[in-house]
């Protein structure tokens, strides 16, 4: 499974979600959107809006499944934990 996490460095729920993945030894790519500048930042925001329909964080892709926010129950289901 390919997992990508769009996160903000300032966001408590992003930290919780990443900690949950780390604690369960799950590998993932992370894009810290607020640490990007210029075109990279604009592109990342556009991706987040396209994927989730908003600008809430974290936004996580588990292959094609989308999880917005620290939804532990849904993460457990998708990771079969």
């Amino acid at each position, binding site marked *: 499974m390919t997992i990508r996490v769009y996160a*903000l460095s*300032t*966001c*408590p*729920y*992003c930290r*919780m979600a990443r900690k949950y993945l780390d604690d369960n030894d799950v590998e993932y790519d992370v894009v810290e*959107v*607020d640490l990007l500048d210029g075109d990279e930042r*604009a592109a990342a*925001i556009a991706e*987040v809006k396209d994927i989730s329909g908003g*600008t*809430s*964080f974290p936004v996580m892709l588990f292959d094609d499944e989308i999880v*917005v*926010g*620290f*939804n*532990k129950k*849904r993460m457990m289901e998708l990771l079969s934990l």
Partner: protein
Amino acid sequence: MSADHARPRRRLFAEGTTIEDLKTYMAPFAATLGYKLNTESEFVDEVLASELEILADTGDVYCPCRVRTGDPKEDAMIVCPCIPFHMVQFAAIRKCWCGLFIRYDVEDGGELLGVIDEPELGAQVEVPVCRVNDLAPGQTKHVKAGKTDYALARVGDEFYAISNVCVHAFGPLADGVLEGHELACPWHGWRYDVRDGTTNHPDADVAAYPVTVRHGYLWLTCAL
């Protein structure tokens, strides 16, 4: 100046602003909207510490869970507390997006941390819109919840809500004169009965909405 900094900087929060300063500043007016700081004090401190980082970087206390897009209008809607912009959604999930603020009637804010499933679009949601003590007898007050503007009116100890928009020329009814149960539009004097929104002009009634009084707050039922 980058697009990120297009909004004016908050002079209110000077260098050296602390977490306690933010609590002291925000809590009173969040209370007017029916919210209080989360009962999970460590979580509150974590969120506000993030807001202080954002303040130092951008000049304002943006929500740490939402991204600044550089669009001044979008960014204004995530300045903490962002409750006024999301009254119906927050009433439905009983907290703000990040959970820094919880609805005043929630006893354990810890149970709301993480994701709360919102009711489906169009669901009816009870929304706290005003403290009883903020509306004296004989007074009116404008509130906005979702996309609707309401004129609240208090007659004695009875509370009413009608549309804030006069059907004649779209005048702001809450700025009008309340005499008994009649509210006169401030622009041309069209008169509406706050009990049911009726007027003496043909086909010119405005919508009236039931008001519930609970634990010192006025609640309206709004569509999500």
